[in-house]
């Protein structure tokens, strides 16, 4: 049985080493990190991390409690337990010869993605969406030849008025 994917949001002090503390905790306790995004939050001096991990309910609870033991962690929210918006951005450098270019542009338009760079034989496509959408797009591009792929990992927040704090 594969463990379900979980998404948690962690509000942390923007201190040197804080990413190391959080990532180190996951590493040494054997929790998986599927993706991690970090950036400023709405409050000066605090950053927000969104971490995708896998694990059952018990594991998720342990992860949350262990995170709270880090002094630099202010708040942990299990986003997956609530209605959330989760988005990821990918840049895909795909082979695009003159003959295949129109087809590729067709896919880009269908996915409401954007072409952000053009060279004689390649395009860089930027796509934003949930991870399934990006997975789908990557699959469609594969036959043309993907030169390079980079994904940001999911960033997310709870829908509605509540604030992750």
């Amino acid at each position: 049985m594969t463990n379900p994917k979980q998404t948690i949001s962690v509000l942390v002090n923007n201190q040197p080493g804080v990413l190391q503390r959080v990532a180190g905790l996951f590493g040494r306790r054997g929790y998986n990190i599927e993706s991690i995004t970090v950036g400023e939050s709405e409050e000066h001096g605090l950053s927000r991390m969104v971490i995708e991990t896998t694990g059952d309910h018990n594991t998720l609870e342990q992860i949350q409690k262990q995170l709270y033991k880090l002094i630099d962690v202010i708040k942990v929210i299990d986003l997956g337990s609530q209605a959330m918006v989760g988005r990821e951005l990918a840049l895909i450098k795909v082979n695009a010869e003159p003959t295949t270019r129109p087809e590729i542009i067709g896919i880009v338009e269908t996915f409401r993605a954007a072409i952000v760079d053009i060279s004689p034989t390649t395009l860089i496509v930027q796509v934003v969406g949930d991870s399934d959408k990006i997975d789908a797009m990557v699959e469609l591009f594969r036959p043309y030849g993907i030169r390079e792929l980079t994904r940001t990992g999911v960033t997310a927040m709870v829908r509605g008025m509540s604030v992750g704090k």
Partner: protein
Amino acid sequence: MSIQERAVMSKEEIRSKLLQPDVISGSEILLRSLLLEGTECIFGYPGGAVLNIYDAMYSFANIRHILTRHEQGAIHAADGYARSTGKVGVCLATSGPGATNVVTGIATAYMDSVPLVVITGNVATSFIGTDAFQEADITGITMPITKHNYLVRNVEDLPRVIKEAFMIASTGRKGPVLIDIPKDVSAHKIAFHYPDSVHVRGYQPTVKPNNLQVQKMIQAIKEAERPVILSGGGVVYADAQNELMEFVEKTQIPITTTLLGLSGFPSSHPLWMGMPGMHGTYSANMALQNCDLLIGIGARFDDRVTMKLSGFAPKAKIVHIDVDPAEIGKNVKTAIPCVGDVKMVLKQANETAQPAKSKAWIEEIARNKQEFPLRFKDSDDELKPQYVIDMISETTKGDAIVTTDVGQHQMWVAQFYKFTKPRSMITSGGLGTMGFGFPSAIGVQVAHPDRLVISVNGDGGMQMCSQELAICAIHNIPVKIVVINNQVLGMVRQWQEIIYDNRYSFIDLAGSPDFVKLAEAYGVKGLRATNKEEAQKVWKEALEFNGPVLIDFQVRKDENVFPMVTAGSAIHEMILGDDE
């Protein structure tokens, strides 16, 4: 401030003098802040990166510093100081090798939730990250083994950081905090200002229990017929021994204490069953196996206690009282969690606690205690290690503070020393650190100059920190240093005998020094016993001697610790041993 000056000053006068907003260096800020936090003694070792601090100490007569002979000795001493008093222990080491030498001690304290503030020097901030001479990323190294740590890059942050460090180390689930101070920071001067209090936004330990959970526990107790209390180090650290006693008496629940929980409950009490687990008593292990209600109090269900988890306490509803919410449900499925300060939870519980229906159960346990007591086959021609521990216990009436190293002798102390007072068993439980036993006793004795302090070591572990004999001699620290000398790495030998079919691989300690001569070389009195008669005689002599003394008890090599539950077995599957 000179020593003379200090002697005539009141506490408040000293305080206000320390608090004066003089322009002083980071080093003096550190020393003043330590005094303001109540530090009595620093265990340390100098080096380049902390020379500013040592220079400040030169003219700072009012803080005691003990120069050990190895940084590991210093940190274990600070640890012993902290465990035996409940106060924060302080240790100081230089950058690089000094800092890495305290890593084992930090991990030891972390595993057993001991409050320490560890100060390390580092290279100047402009050199950090350049692989400078004696540079080590000690904050990176110790992240997984500290409750929190700091690299102080600005001297302005230093007073707040020290205040926070003491607060974090000594509250909630206690633990070591490291402060790394680069050399330029310890030199920079600013006007001193020490905060009255600090607020750390991400740190709010739950201490006040939820009454609803406490009442659920009370209800479960009333219904229980075969209840057991498993009490651990958390009871000792919370100074909750009186509350625990009241709880046990009111609820009539038999109790077993973990290795770190020993001394948290008097061993003379009829409801006490001894230690559980790998080398636990028959009665304690059977009680855990058959109980219908298990109340863990400040104990973390370590694998040396539970043994095979899937077979642990199979019929029990589990209540878990702990200050650390992350311990709840970590190892065992918990029906009733009670998060909070152990002392407060027990106080609250005692208000309404009622007896369990445990009469028949108590009788059953009493029968087990009588039928399967801890025992060993004594001998008149050979000196048995258990005999020595038994003798030490008898002659001191359980009144001493005992530190142990790690191995068979540690288990025999746990089994045969009858503890009566809290904080009198000082041992490395979680990390199982050899080399801890002797130096930790130095810290204990410094904190308790008038108590009898006994350090029990194996002949292996004794050689891991024996250099600190010098400290005992120089400062006349009167620890009774016991070496249970079986000429082998006993606990390893036992495993190799029982689990590896007598394939003894590298356990022979031939070539160890003559421990009596070793002690004497440092100026410590040395005594030796090879049989029971000599043992009685030299032990009496040691107790009467006013100063540090090492006693080399040469005991039988092949003795094993029983009962024993081997790894992978359930807790009731005990090997009771070949004795009797």
